[in-house]
């Protein structure tokens, strides 16, 4: 289960960041922000390849001592970043993938809301619930 989930706009500013309240939020903000270096690099490397049928899941961005950071980028260049505890070895790549897919679906629902203005911070209860279901329950 994730310890931090973030949605980053095309222009690389945060649309949504949630992390486990037990830990230093600022640290996760920095982790997500720095991971964008790798996301950017991966996207630009992909730009050369075929654009249509590309894989949205970017895989493990980089491992730190304590966390693993995974990335996912939609066709409209909105990025999802998920931070998972390194000690959590039960999470397979496939599970991460399906979590991202779930997140993407939920994000699509947010976008479909006519009252949501693309580019604004996400303030949706449904999206919140989806994220909560993926997060490590706060104890």
């Amino acid at each position: 289960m994730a310890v931090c989930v973030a949605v980053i706009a095309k222009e690389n500013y945060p649309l949504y960041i949630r992390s486990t309240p037990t830990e230093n939020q600022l640290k996760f903000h920095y982790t997500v922000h720095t991971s964008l270096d790798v996301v950017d690099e991966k996207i630009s490397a992909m730009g050369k390849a075929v654009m249509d049928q590309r894989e949205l899941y970017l895989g493990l961005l980089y491992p730190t001592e304590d966390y693993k950071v995974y990335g996912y980028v939609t066709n409209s260049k909105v990025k999802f970043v998920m931070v998972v505890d390194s000690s959590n070895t039960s999470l397979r790549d496939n599970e991460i993938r399906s979590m991202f897919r779930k997140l993407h679906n939920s994000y699509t629902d947010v976008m479909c809301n006519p009252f949501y203005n693309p580019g604004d911070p996400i303030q949706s209860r449904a999206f919140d619930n989806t994220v909560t279901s993926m997060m490590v329950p706060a104890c």
Partner: protein
Amino acid sequence: MSPTQWDFPVELCCRPMAFVTLTGLDVTFNAVHRAIWDAFCANRRADRVPISFKVLPGDHEYPKCRTKRTSYEWYIPKGILKTGWMNKHLNLVPALVVVFYELDWDEAQWKEKQSECATRVEIVRQSLQGRNTKVAVVLIQKKTPLPPGEDMIASERAAALCNACDLSGKSLFVLPHTDHLVGYIIRLENAFYEHAQTYYYTEIRRVKSHKEFLNKTTHQLLFVRHQFKIAFFSELKQDTQNALKNYRTAYNLVHELRSHETNMLEIKTMAGFINYKICRLCFQHNTPLDAIAQFRKHIDLCKKKIGSAELSFEHAAWMSKQFQAFGDLFDEAIKLGLTAIQTQNPGFYYQQAAYYAQERKQLAGHLCNHEASVAYPSPDPLETVNGVLDFYGQRAWRQGILSFDLSDPEKEKAGILALQLKEIEVIHSELIISLLSNAVAQFKKYKCPRMKSHLMVQMGEEYYHAKDYTKALKLLDYVMCDYRSERWWTLLTSILTTALKCAYLMAQLKDYITYSLELLGRASTLKEDQKSRIEKNLIKVLMNESPDPEPECDVTMVKTAQRLWADRVSLAGSNLFTIEVQEFVPFVQCKAKFLSPTFHVDSPVELHVYLRTDCPHPIRFSKLCIGFSNQEYNQFCVVEEQYHASEILEQSTQGTMCLVPGKTRKFTFKFVAKTEDVGKKIEISSVDLILGGDAGRCVILNWRGGGGDAASSQEAVQASRSFKRRPKLPENEVHWDSVAIQASTMIVSRVPKISVQLHHEPPALNNEMYCLKITIQSQETTVIRDVKITAGLKPGQDANLTQKTLVSLNGAELCDDSSPALLTDIPVGDLQPGGKIEMPLYICCGTEGTRIFLVYVSYLIETFVEDRQIICKCHKDETVTIETVFPFEVAVKFVSIKFEHLDRVYTDIPFLLMTDILSTSPWALTIKSSQLQLASSITSADQLESHVENIVLQTGESASECFCLQCPPVVSNQTGVATGCYVISWKRSSADNSVPVVNTMITLPHVMVETIPLHIRADLPSFGRVRESLPVKYHLQNKTSLVQDIEIAVEPSDAFMFSGLKMIRLQILPGTEQEMLYNFYPLMAGYQQLPSLNINLLRFPNFTSHLLKRFLPTHIFVKPQGRQAEEDSIEAA
């Protein structure tokens, strides 16, 4: 204990090389020996064998060898690895001792010398007793040796010397010091290297042989020690593959050791050493992934081995060192050609090292927080007998004690306290910052700008903790804009908060104000109470008071800061600050807009400035002024309000300069533009909003252009996308998002109130004086003055058009080439209200095509704007597109007298020139006259008078003329002869009489002239009648100066009978004519072929009768025989 206790020992980090000592060399006084030594040690490139040489005296005492243990049964090791062991084998115990001795084969006193040499060898052997170290002898000789086998004395004496010294033949060398010294030395050292390898091989065997005596219970430490030694000897032997294998085994053995709090440090130290060696060798073997994998395994295994909780900072320090060392190795490998990638580069290891250094600092701060009264224990538990530990990683106060129980808890306590007190003295921040800056350098290299920024923030924060606020501020300020431009407001706020603390602690006024402005702004994610506190502080600063200290600041530093602030207060001057707010997100936003993108000069320029604040409390500004590109307008756009300093926070919202948070305030300005600025742009160059007043400090918030800040453009985009309905606001309030900046406006001239009309009859005809009637009528209410007209071809068209277009006001005569294409500033004078001017303009277009003509009327008028009289210049322009066409087409053809088409004419034979003028003008044309101007080569056969004078041609009508011409004999050429030209004088039928006639000259085509020797002409009636005689006379004319012999034959025709000479040969004299008479008798009615005349000129064989036939009729119409009555009527006719 030095502060570098965590650093790896030098002997571990260096590349082990075989150790060889050279004795018997006097490098100070003997030049030869010096040269030999230099050849050994100088210029040791990578292609030379890896040996470290040392010069020692012959009687040097080598470390004593301990007596060999025969049994390990009762032996209990005291530690894993002795601290001196590596150094001993690198620098003290040689693999080979070389004895240099000067001796030539033909030495006179051979016996004596030989025994002296043997003694020297013996001395060396003595001091190496018990060791396997090899001994070799090098004889330094003056003479070049003879090839082997030739010098009998040499081989004999060499054998004797070997015997005397107890040496094998392989250990005796000869070194002639001749020209090729370096070459000999290289051969020598290769030989030494072989000896050294043999030595290390035997050493490895020796250590391995101990293994069988060991048992797993008591000798666990020895397993590690021996394995390490084997690996190290392998390295000395330059067998890196086996070294790596043995180090790996050693590494596994280390982790098999029973660990306890007491020996944890020793195990970790050794594990760290071996890991270092493994990683180093992996990088050396170019298998970086193995190195990384080994390192990860190492970290995973050791991460949790914290050891004593009271000394947990030691674990952090050790971890930090592990990462740093790996980062160094990685970096080293990259310098030697390894390529790293974005996600796997040394930066991550330095970053992690820094992270552990931070943890170390925290733990140290936590654990070593002793009272000042706690004294350093005495006697010093960290002191050892010789200043160093016996074994790596052991505690000074219980060296060699293997028991896990603490025999002396008091001593243990003192030791821990000593370590803790030592730890306080470590300057952690320095370590952290240097690691961070290493990481920054790496991330910069591997395209990680955000990671770099993050580390720089950490560096800044570390400097803040280290109380170096200047450096902290510099770093934080540097990265702030990155976070701001990427709009990570949470992170920006955190950085700003630290920066504000730094600015406060240094009492940096301008920085303090700048950071406050942004922390109060909408980008700040601070809580309302924090913002409120900052705003109050800001107001205090503005009133020239000291602000309250920032929370969580170091108490002692706050005291210093308060003193600094007090100094600032008392110090007058420099209380005016200009802050460029465009670069960040201040708490007050500004948008300035001209109400229209253009203003007429006779109406006032209107300008709105909108301000809005986001701070928690209402705030009062003292002045708002706007700067323009033309500074003369600045004076009109200033709002100022005098108030007393104490009122600054008063809740009165009546004052115009007091801004209530979240409410948009509009300021309206109006000014009259200067008439000189007509056609120019007026731009808002700056908006200055002044906070604070004369009494306290004064801050000028400066926006360049029409306002906006680092976040506003994105906000505008978002707002424009939004579908949300904006809530209704009271009448005079506006929505901030709905205001768009309009920073420039154009001053345009007053709208003219005149009409300009153009009358003309298009299209224009080529070369005619085309009349364009301009009618100007004033609709102004007052007199307009200085009316000027500029008329003609509109500039900016094809340059050829300018050449071929002439404009004139005088229509009575044709334009000449001096007339311009555009008449400028024709003065017309004044015009009364309602007055009207008409003016014809004549245009002469030399080529057909489309042209655009411009009529531009300008005038001056006096008018009033906002009670000010100004003289406005107004202008109106009209353009008209005029097509120019040819008025007519002229067709010319040459025909024979018989109106047959001619493609060439014959000398002296008359022909006709026919002209045909076809009017293509939509308007009626009057042809005044026409004239044929013949060239000299052509003469007219009769009078040349015009047949088309004063003819009016409507569209599509044509007028034809016919001239009979003759061509006298000329020397003809390829192109023929010029015939002259045809001039048509014409005008538009509708034009006045005064309008001149246009002469259009048409050049007639050239004609080919040919001379013929014989001309033949037939006289025959226009028709014949069946069965009635038809007399035909042929005239043959000799055109040459020769007598012509001619054969004539008449070919019979079915339609005719004929009488006359059927075949004749005759002569014609030059210039004379011969007549031939025939009587044809038609037999059939209809268009019948005449009997043809075949003429053959004997003198001109080329001249065929075919050509001559052109002059003769071929057919004739034969009427049938009519009745008598008809016949009579015909005869009557």
